[in-house]
């Protein structure tokens, strides 16, 4: 037949388990222990409160520019909660809650956003990459890590995060294609927060969903309510299991919202309405999950309040520790560290020249 249908049967699912009105789909409800549920909630809460604190610090001039995560705690925590310590985590730059859950210290985050290279240290044993600011670039690294994990015959999987904007970048498409061709154990998590700085997702892509892009590469894709931590968890659990058991990669689109500015250098009033933001705020993932926990009898309100106090104390201690540490971290010569395994002679010479300059009253510069 010269012209006939090709049976491309991929269908796309959308998943919601606990909606913003508190309706719960009990058949789909993931079976998490009480302890796990509380851990998950605490990680989201810590992400939220720390983010708020970072904003205060930034507004007071105590740290530099940073990208707030507010409203995206469920999208990242629901997904990353499925990883084992032996798995790999490959973030973009708006996954602070997930980074903390994986073991990054609050202190290192403060250092990083206050312009100290020391904040980039990934502690020994942690299989996490540092944040990636060049949009989309990290997606490919996840594919390489996944390929290597297979090559070494481990059951490790890799989870990488990126935004809606990143799905326009060639790196995203190349990464998904390679992952599918090599059937690497990667879970691709797109936090579709509706905006890439001032560009809405409707002008980022002509397709109605981002999840459907998976089909172009021959992998499953699913769209989930990214403010429903149970749905994100369930979708990611399925994808993680698929990856671990040799079933290859999955793309998960978490539909969420960037409630705050893109970074603290951005003014969203220039390009979006307050009403839109207000609408999304009603879909806040935190109270939704808190109500679920209370309804289920997992925690009482006083217990959650107590958790909140603990979180605030942890944050305060980290801010104090970070500020103390930053006071001790002035040495300009540290900028020469870690560029190469072995410092080449010309760099040694440049470092010595700066050392002489500092010894010779270079403080003047500091005082400018």
């Amino acid at each position: 037949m010269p012209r006939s249908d090709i049976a491309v049967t991929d269908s796309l699912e959308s998943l919601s388990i606990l909606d913003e009105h508190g309706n719960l789909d009990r058949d789909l409800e993931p079976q998490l222990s009480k302890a796990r549920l509380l851990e998950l909630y605490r990680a989201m809460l810590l992400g939220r409160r720390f983010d708020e604190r970072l904003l205060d610090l930034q507004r007071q001039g105590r740290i530099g520019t940073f990208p707030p995560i507010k409203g995206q705690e469920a999208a990242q925590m629901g997904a990353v909660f499925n990883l084992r310590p032996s798995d790999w985590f490959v973030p973009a730059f708006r996954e602070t809650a997930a980074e903390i859950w994986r073991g990054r210290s609050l202190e290192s985050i403060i250092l990083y956003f206050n312009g100290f290279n020391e904040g980039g240290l990934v502690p020994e044993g942690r299989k996490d990459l540092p944040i990636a600011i060049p949009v989309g670039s990290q997606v490919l690294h996840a594919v390489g890590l996944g390929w290597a994990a297979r090559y070494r015959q481990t059951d490790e999987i890799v989870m990488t995060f990126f935004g809606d904007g990143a799905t326009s970048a060639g790196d995203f498409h190349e990464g998904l294609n390679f992952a599918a061709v090599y059937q690497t154990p990667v879970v691709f998590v797109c936090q579709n927060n509706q905006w890439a700085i001032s560009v809405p997702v409707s002008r980022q892509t002509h397709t109605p969903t981002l999840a459907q892009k998976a089909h172009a590469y021959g992998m499953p894709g699913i769209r989930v309510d990214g403010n429903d931590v149970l749905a994100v968890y369930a979708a990611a659990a399925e994808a993680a299991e698929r990856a671990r058991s040799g079933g290859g990669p999955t793309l998960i689109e978490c539909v969420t919202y960037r409630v705050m500015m893109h970074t603290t250098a951005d003014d969203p009033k220039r390009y979006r309405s307050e009403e839109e933001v207000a609408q999304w705020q009603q879909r806040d993932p935190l109270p939704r999950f808190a109500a679920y926990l209370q309804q289920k009898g997992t925690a009482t309100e006083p217990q959650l309040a107590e958790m909140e106090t603990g979180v605030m104390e942890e944050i305060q201690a980290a801010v104090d520790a970070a500020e103390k540490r930053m006071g001790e971290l002035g040495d300009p010569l540290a900028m020469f560290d870690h560029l190469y395994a072995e410092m080449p002679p010309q760099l040694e010479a440049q470092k010595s020249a700066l050392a002489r300059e500092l010894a010779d009253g270079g403080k003047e510069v500091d005082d400018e």
Partner: protein
Amino acid sequence: MSKMTMVQAINLALRQEMANDDRVVLLGEDIGRDGGVFRVTEGLIDAFGPERVLDTPLAESAIAGMAVGMAIYGLRPVCEIQFSGFAYHCFHQLESHAARLRWRSQGRLSVPMVLRAPYGGGVRALEHHSESREAYWAHTPGLKTVIPSGPRTARALMVSAIRDPDPVVFYEAKGLYRAYREEVPDEEEIIPIGRSQIVREGGDLTMIAYGAMVRPALEAAEELRASDGVETEVIDLLTIAPLDDTLILQSVTRTGRAVVIHEAPRSFGPGAEIVTRLMEGAFYYLEAPIARVTGYDLIIPYFSREKWYIPNVRRIVDAARQTLTS
């Protein structure tokens, strides 16, 4: 005449060129409604509409590659890359196509596009937002690399860049964007690409700088006069490639001493070419080794230490004194 920041001055150049020539179109991330993250394109989408100011999806390769096609068609695309640190995906399109299409097509096709990008440090920005890697472009045959030093030169060079028949990479020192205001004439003003300028005259020493380094060079010159009685000539290159060496050679032939200043890493930086030109063209007039004041061969450190990386007045004065006493 009105006093403008460099942001406003570039905006003026874009606005006037767009008004004069409907071939001029802009494309880049967040350049429409948001006016660009530095507001360089502020108001242009209102003035010229979304057909001529394209708020693109997030893909630098596509921005550059699409501009190549637009330029081949006969338009004059001006791309904004949000930060020069994100321009590396453009490199492929510029190196492989824009820079060589005239040559490959035996002069039949050309790519008159402009790629604008903020570069350089000093604004406490995040990682990847403060590099000075103009040498990558300057090293590419077929490209022109232009770096203005303030509002007035930015405006006058942007006009030339847009009208240039060949691809131009236009680096804007983000530290200068709002650093100061300068008189910029309302009527057309042009500085031809490939021409440097003497911005201060002097007979004892020549300083060669561009972009954000011109101001510290001028300050250092002032200090040398006040404390050492030395008269320094300062040359603002404006175009990095193709490098115009007439003025620097004339000057160094007179002064016999030179200090070259850039924020970019030292090794294989623009200074290496500048110094070599001086060696080739003024060797017998040199009275002292030529000094370089540059960034270190490092990735510019995160902002708490960036002031130690970026050349400053003190380093320039020290280098000048060494040159003067050797």
